[in-house]
């Protein structure tokens, strides 16, 4: 079974995003970029499927700027077998929308014919939580989003999903899209020898035009602003003072 894992290059999880003063967006110049954390979980799960003998090949795909090849090298160092980079933007500030990403992924999938696509549930930059679901729609495949557990059993995947109020388990026929939530696994760190080896693994480079996909955004970003700042209140000295303040406010 072939597993395809889309990965996105985003601002590093530990870096605080700074809004540009002219309201044109978040400043990404000279900012540390990394693999989207949910995508790292998806890569890890795919590699575990390979280690368990369920998957034969893991293909990582990234769509965005040319520098996303660093992100793909990370996926290769973790254990993916090969990578495909689809260059769709020149400027790191141009985010490719989930709909366009899904269309490009669909074209890649038509060629690659994987039986399973493992994606992160959400990118931590645009926070859309949409690519996996949109891709499933375009392919006419079943979808199992927000996965915290995945079992492959012949031609079906049994997936436990993180939903409001608890967990839901569903079965999707393969091929299918599964999107990873936080508790699916803990991704490994790539070892130095594997980082070296990853440099020799195949990485194909394509463009959005190769797949005939128009990546023009449907949503025009009118402006980007800082969220309203909440004013800090006071420090109370004791539990007694806290209780009396809350009683004054009538909330307890």
């Amino acid at each position, binding site marked *: 079974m072939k597993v395809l894992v889309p990965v996105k290059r985003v601002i590093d999880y530990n870096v605080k*995003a*700074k*809004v540009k003063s002219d309201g044109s967006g*978040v400043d990404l110049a000279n900012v540390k970029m990394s693999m989207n954390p949910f995508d790292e979980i998806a890569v890890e799960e795919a590699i575990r499927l390979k280690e368990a003998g369920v998957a034969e090949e893991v293909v990582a795909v990234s769509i965005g700027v040319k520098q996303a090849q660093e992100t793909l090298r990370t996926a290769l160092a973790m254990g993916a077998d090969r990578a495909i980079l689809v260059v769709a933007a020149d400027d790191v500030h141009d985010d490719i*929308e*989930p*709909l366009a990403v899904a269309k490009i992924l669909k074209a890649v999938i038509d060629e690659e014919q994987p039986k399973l696509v493992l994606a992160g549930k*959400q990118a*931590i*930059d645009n*926070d*859309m939580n*949409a690519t*996996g*679901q*949109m891709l499933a*729609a375009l392919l*006419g*495949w*079943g*979808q*199992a*989003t927000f996965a915290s557990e995945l079992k492959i059993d012949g031609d079906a995947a*049994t997936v436990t999903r*993180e939903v*409001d*109020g*608890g*967990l*839901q*388990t*569903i*079965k999707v*026929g393969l091929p*299918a899209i599964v999107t990873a*939530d*936080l*508790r699916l696994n803990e991704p490994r760190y790539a070892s130095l020898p594997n980082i070296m080896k990853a440099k020799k693994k195949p990485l194909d480079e394509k463009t959005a035009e190769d797949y005939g996909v128009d990546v023009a955004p*449907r*949503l*025009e*970003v*009118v*402006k*980007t*602003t800082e*969220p309203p700042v*909440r004013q*800090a*209140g*006071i*420090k*109370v000295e*004791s*539990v*007694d003072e*806290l209780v009396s303040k*809350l009683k004054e406010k009538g*909330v*307890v």
Partner: protein
Amino acid sequence: MAVLLLAEVNSGELALDATAKAVSAAKDLGDVTVLCAGASAAAAGDEAAKIDGVAKVLVAEGDSLGHRLAEATADLIVSLAGDYSHIAAPATTDAKNIMPRVAALLDVMVISDVSGVVDADTFERPVYAGNAIQTVKSKDEKKVLTIRTSTFDAAGTGGSASVETIDAPAASGLSEWVEDKVAESDRPELTSAGIVVSGGRGVGSEDDFALIEKLADKLGAAVGASRAAVDSGYAPNDWQVGQTGKVVAPELYVAVGISGAIQHLAGMKDSKIIVAINKDEEAPIFQVADYGLVADLFTAVPELIEKL
């Protein structure tokens, strides 16, 4: 202009708070038709008809719509889409699963987690874990959106919209339900609770999280957790408050042992009153707290439970 709004229906029951908040956000966009879909949805439809500002309710009942599987529910919405300029839903995990699928089938972008409606084409939404608010203008003919309910007040009840029954679609055959593990709890639901007590990494262990639950029970509150606490295995994921978890805006939010990472703040900073208990006086949570108590939670929380 007209809005089709997918109501949140769980096991035949309407989630009134989430649905009524989404109605508030949607009613300026046009006449609101609420869709109640499920294996059983008639009772939910009758309840939705009472929400102020609802023009009409559609009820679709069928086995294919049970358990909110995305494929059949999305097919149903797409079959109805022709009559509407906007298709909306409260941003629950169900809607986040279903609505992007609907949008792709209609060849439009989804607009997720809308926190403000500027006009019929223009919406505000938080990005970068709440570090920025983006205003986006959609060029698509139809708008598909999910609504961050914590920023809208619930529409009142007292209306009496007409209820129409429609056919359920065939099962997709792509996915099937196996089981639900819903945490049985007498506590209020996290996103609609008046008081929320949350614990963070500072709580230190799954066992010690019982202290957070005890304080919550004393206050009749829902229990929340930071992503760090969920990550460390102290609390289940459905308690997670933050940009990647649930967004809450209760009357009172008590953050215990939570440092206040931006991704957590994004999920609770619209709370009316915020209390923070943390032994680190430099913790960023104090910058948003109305009342901060610098103290060891293991002495302060038991004392608080006793004195409330």
